[in-house]
């Protein structure tokens, strides 16, 4: 056991793992984190706590992760390369481990110009860091854990024991390089991988075949990412504007049909689309878990955490495995 985290135990058990996502608020009020944690706990094995996603200031991932942990939800803290140099990263990793965190996902982070796709002011004039990239951060975390050494070579008396994660955009450009991009993260030491949201299962299946040919499915646990669709508009937006995400026309058509069935009734249109979105999600989960080499799913119900319970039950993934306390 590398970290002893619940997520690691589930993966080692061979049962499909379920992770979810919790976005911290743009506020110093902890209650939103507490409420979201209550909606998610019990329905997933761990939940990612995003790190200033969309380049907007929010409660820090580590702080929100500790709040979630106190509420009985195992967190996957996230660490972007955008905001910290290797000194701050390692200091935060020591601190996070000291506070009881056991999973960490390494990501490049949305560029500071993103500012929530222009919906918020953000900080487009900020200076970014990118001292190290995701691959290098994974390697640093592994070196700390397995060799008790800092990146610079200084000894660590009590090393931080993280279950190390990285993201993968299997359908991003240039697509033929993406399996190798994954291989580098696995070579660096990624214990688990969460993919970008998948709607195009056919293309994902072929990318997974390439990953299997490189033997990567045996060296890391790949969790297929699912962004729960809520409306036809959301699917169209993601297809057009989110890098590495393509949405098959058939799914957009299904959602459009659900919307149109409500006529002019806006409330009903929302309800019908949400119901269809949940059906699509459950189907995607089943299709993705059927792909050889996939070890679980990462369900992102953005600002819709209450949906996770029903999805997990409908997908036959409940109850979640439990383990006796050590």
């Amino acid at each position, binding site marked *: 056991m590398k970290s002893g985290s619940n997520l690691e135990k589930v993966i080692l058990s061979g049962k499909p793992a379920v992770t979810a996502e919790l976005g911290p608020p743009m506020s110093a009020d902890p209650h939103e984190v507490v409420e979201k944690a209550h909606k998610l706990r019990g329905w997933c094995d761990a939940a990612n706590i995003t790190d200033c996603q969309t380049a907007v200031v929010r409660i820090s991932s580590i702080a929100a992760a500790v709040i979630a942990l106190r509420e009985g939800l195992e967190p996957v803290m996230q660490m972007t*390369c*955008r905001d910290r140099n*290797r000194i701050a990263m390692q200091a935060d990793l020591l601190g996070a481990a000291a506070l009881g965190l056991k999973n960490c996902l390494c990501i*490049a*982070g*949305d*560029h500071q*110009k*993103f500012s929530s796709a222009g919906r918020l002011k953000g900080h487009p004039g900020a200076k*970014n860091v*990118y*001292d*190290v*990239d*995701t*691959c*290098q951060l994974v*390697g*640093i975390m592994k070196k700390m854990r397995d060799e008790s050494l800092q*990146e610079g070579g200084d000894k660590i008396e009590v090393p931080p024991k993280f279950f190390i994660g990285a*993201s*993968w*955009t299997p359908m*991003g*450009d*240039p697509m033929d*390089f993406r399996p*190798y*991009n994954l*291989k*580098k993260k696995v*070579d*660096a030491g990624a214990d688990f991988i969460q993919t*970008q949201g998948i709607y195009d299962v056919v293309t994902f299946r072929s990318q997974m075949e390439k990953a299997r040919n490189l033997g990567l499915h045996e060296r890391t646990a790949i969790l297929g990412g699912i962004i729960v669709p809520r409306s036809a508009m959301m699917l169209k937006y993601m297809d057009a504007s989110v*890098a*590495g995400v393509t949405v098959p026309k058939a799914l957009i058509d299904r959602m459009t049909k659900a919307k149109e069935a409500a006529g002019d009734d806006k409330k009903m249109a929302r309800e019908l689309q949400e119901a269809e979105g949940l059906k699509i999600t459950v189907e995607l989960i089943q299709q993705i878990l059927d792909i050889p080499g996939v070890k679980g799913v990462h369900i992102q119900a953005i600002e819709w955490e209450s949906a996770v319970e029903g999805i997990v039950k409908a997908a036959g993934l409940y109850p979640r495995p439990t383990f006796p306390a050590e």
Partner: protein
Amino acid sequence: MIVGQQKPFDEIWEMVRGFKKVLVFGCNTCVAISHAGGGKEAEILASMLRMKATQEGLDMQVDNAAIERHCEPEFFEPMMEKVRSYDLVLSTACGVGVNFLADRIGDIPVYPGVNTSFYGAVPKAGFFVELCGGCGNCILHLTGGICPVVRCSKSLMNGPCGGTDKGKCEVSKEIDCAWYLIVERMKKLGTIEQLYTIQPPRNWSTGTHGGPRRLVYEHIMELEEEKKG
């Protein structure tokens, strides 16, 4: 070359309006090519400042001059006496020129008329692109001649990230994804397998993160001393 862009006129005017005798001092090398601060641009800027002073009823003398390069003493030493006769030098050289002159001129202020933008090239007239970050530790042999330090918005050494969309960067559809270019070029060169190896964390101290940089060739300095006798 160093690419620069002239500062907005209103910003320049706010800098210079309190001075009686101003020299707009151009540099005829890099910033002349980027239409920012050569002799021609210095002349136009000086005449705009004179007009503005007249409009505002201010008694101001604004002259202009230019030399070949602001970054080597031999070019501006012959001009120093004239330059020192002004209350203010508004330099339209790059930041190197402004600093170099400020270090030598004595008690006269030297203000920048140009924003020094980047090290770049001119693919076509009127179009300048940044191609080098001056990081002091070149790895272009590992990346197909395409610089990830400055052409990737996140300076990734093991790219691409998840933000690549149809070969463009997440920062703007106007920006090519450097890692997309690197992968495609290295496929053509038959060297794509080099990219399967992880690049370790970089030593950034050769760049601006190691404090101000110097380069010393002692043998050349000695030869110069000998020549002077």
